């Protein structure tokens, strides 16, 4: 668990950037820090691996005050991924991934195997990429290597500062998808900074919205979208927030029993926004909902979205 207790940070000569932040990132969860540019997201994140020291308050990782932990030891247990990636230009992809294990003295063969596994997991075939230099990779490929490098020493924690923000939308979405899968497999505790609401909603187990030096709202994505705590949150999450909420659900959450008059099909496991889009495209007629097996399991019409969105909870968020 990562815990911030009454953390305040003031840079010399400026107003406080963070003002009494108390926040916990539970084990195995991904918490997104979001907020306008300059709201202190990176500052808050960099307090965890002590790239910055707090003015007052404390940061706790694994039940230990980070101020009492050897800084090198602390950082080796916390993977760090940044927007500009920061690969070493003179090392090959494999050498970059093996950087930390090579310093901590992991045997060459063992760390090489680990690097290849991680590259494979990140969708870069080692045979094709291991011996390349960073400048020979696209931005998306570089960030895949950056994530593999952060995971190489198998840290329990990951800090990610806008890792996908510099990528084009298609690459970004592919990486988000792959990253979600990776997260499920590896189970790290992750603090993730972004300024992109869609990304926050897609990736976060919880979202922490920073503004004016304080936490404006902390909660599951659905809560920030559906019950914004104040005008700041409502305006930051945007006017399309009810549409964004649909992305948290599937067609299954909205469907009614099969309707013989329905024409056209949507998938049972489609995100609800995709199903809605299909319905709009069909001109408002009812459509069949089809399970992956091909069996018709229900039907959907436009009015289903208006009625049930208040009552239903997204899958996997009981009682949220």
């Amino acid at each position, binding site marked *: 668990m990562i815990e911030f207790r009454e953390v305040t940070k003031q840079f010399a000569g400026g107003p406080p950037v963070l003002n009494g932040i108390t926040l916990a990132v539970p084990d195995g969860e991904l918490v997104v820090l979001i907020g306008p540019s300059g709201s202190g997201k990176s500052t808050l994140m960099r307090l965890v691996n002590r*790239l910055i020291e707090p003015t007052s308050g404390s940061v706790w990782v694994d039940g230990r005050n980070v101020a009492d932990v050897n800084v090198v030891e602390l950082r080796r247990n916390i993977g760090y991924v940044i927007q500009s990636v920061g690969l070493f230009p003179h090392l090959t992809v494999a050498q970059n991934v093996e950087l930390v294990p090579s310093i901590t003295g992991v045997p060459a063969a063992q760390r090489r195997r680990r690097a290849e596994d991680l590259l494979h997991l990140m969708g870069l075939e080692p045979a094709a990429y291991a011996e390349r*230099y960073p400048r020979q990779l696209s931005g998306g490929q570089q960030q895949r290597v950056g994530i593999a*490098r952060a995971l190489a020493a198998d840290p329990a924690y990951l800090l990610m500062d806008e890792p996908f923000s510099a990528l084009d939308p298609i690459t970004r979405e592919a990486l988000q998808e792959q990253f979600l899968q990776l997260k499920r497999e590896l189970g790290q505790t992750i603090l993730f900074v972004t300024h992109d609401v869609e990304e926050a909603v897609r990736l976060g187990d919880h979202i922490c919205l920073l503004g004016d030096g304080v936490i404006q709202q902390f909660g599951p994505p659905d809560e920030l979208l559906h019950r914004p705590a104040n005008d700041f949150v409502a305006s930051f999450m945007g006017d399309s927030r009810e549409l964004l909420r649909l992305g948290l659900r599937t067609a299954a959450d909205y469907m009614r029993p099969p309707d013989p008059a329905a024409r056209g099909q949507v998938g049972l496991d489609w995100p609800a926004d995709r199903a809605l889009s299909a319905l709009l495209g069909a001109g408002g007629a009812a459509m069949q909902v089809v399970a992956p097996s091909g069996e018709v399991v229900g039907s959907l019409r436009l009015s289903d979205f208006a009625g049930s969105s208040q009552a239903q909870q997204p899958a996997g968020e009981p009682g949220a």
Partner: protein
Amino acid sequence: MSRLGVQAALLAAGWAAFFWLVSAQELWARVMGALFPQVSTPVYERNTLWELTWQHLGLTGVTMTLVVLIGVGLGVWTTRAQGHAFLPLVNNLTTVGQTFPPIAVLFLALPLVGFGATGAVAALTLYALLPVTRSTVLGLQSVDRPVLDAARGLGLSAAQRLWRLEVPVALPAVLAGIRTALVLTIATATLAPMVGTGGLGVPIIAGLGADNLALILQGAIPVALLALLGDLTMRTLERWLTPWVP
């Protein structure tokens, strides 16, 4: 064979040809005698060309060792927190060292270090320090902020960041600076006889005094070849040591 292999093989052949040429005292005497029938001494006679060449290589070698140690040392020191305050001073001193004509540096250094090989080496070192110091500083400063930030965040200590990141990233610039200094030293070392040392400048200066073009060429041709070979050797070394450079 790889491109680098071919380059290295050609280079080895070049050096072999050079050493054969400077060992062929008889050949020089005959060719120069034929080219300049009017001069009485077509080759320098108090030392063989072979001896002069090795004196020149010795001067260059000692100077370059000092230049690399001091230049890289100063570059690293002035880019650390401890030495940062001295960066402008070091920049200015090395620049002054180089804007003076080499002959002036040689003579200015005389009262400090005395006549002879020590004086020559000291003056040559001062003169060639600038490109190495400057390129070390620029190379170390060229490390991208985010890369340094990532290195810090991943738990590399200051020493690990220096040796595993900053030095390798600076290496292409440092090597290019050393190459410049090397060519400069090979050329400037021809002035060393003026402060009482040997080298390939000896026949050149003797030839200038006696209006003997044969003697001048006997020194100038090997110096030119040496500078060329030194440059190519450094370029090959750069390619070999920094394969990541496009």
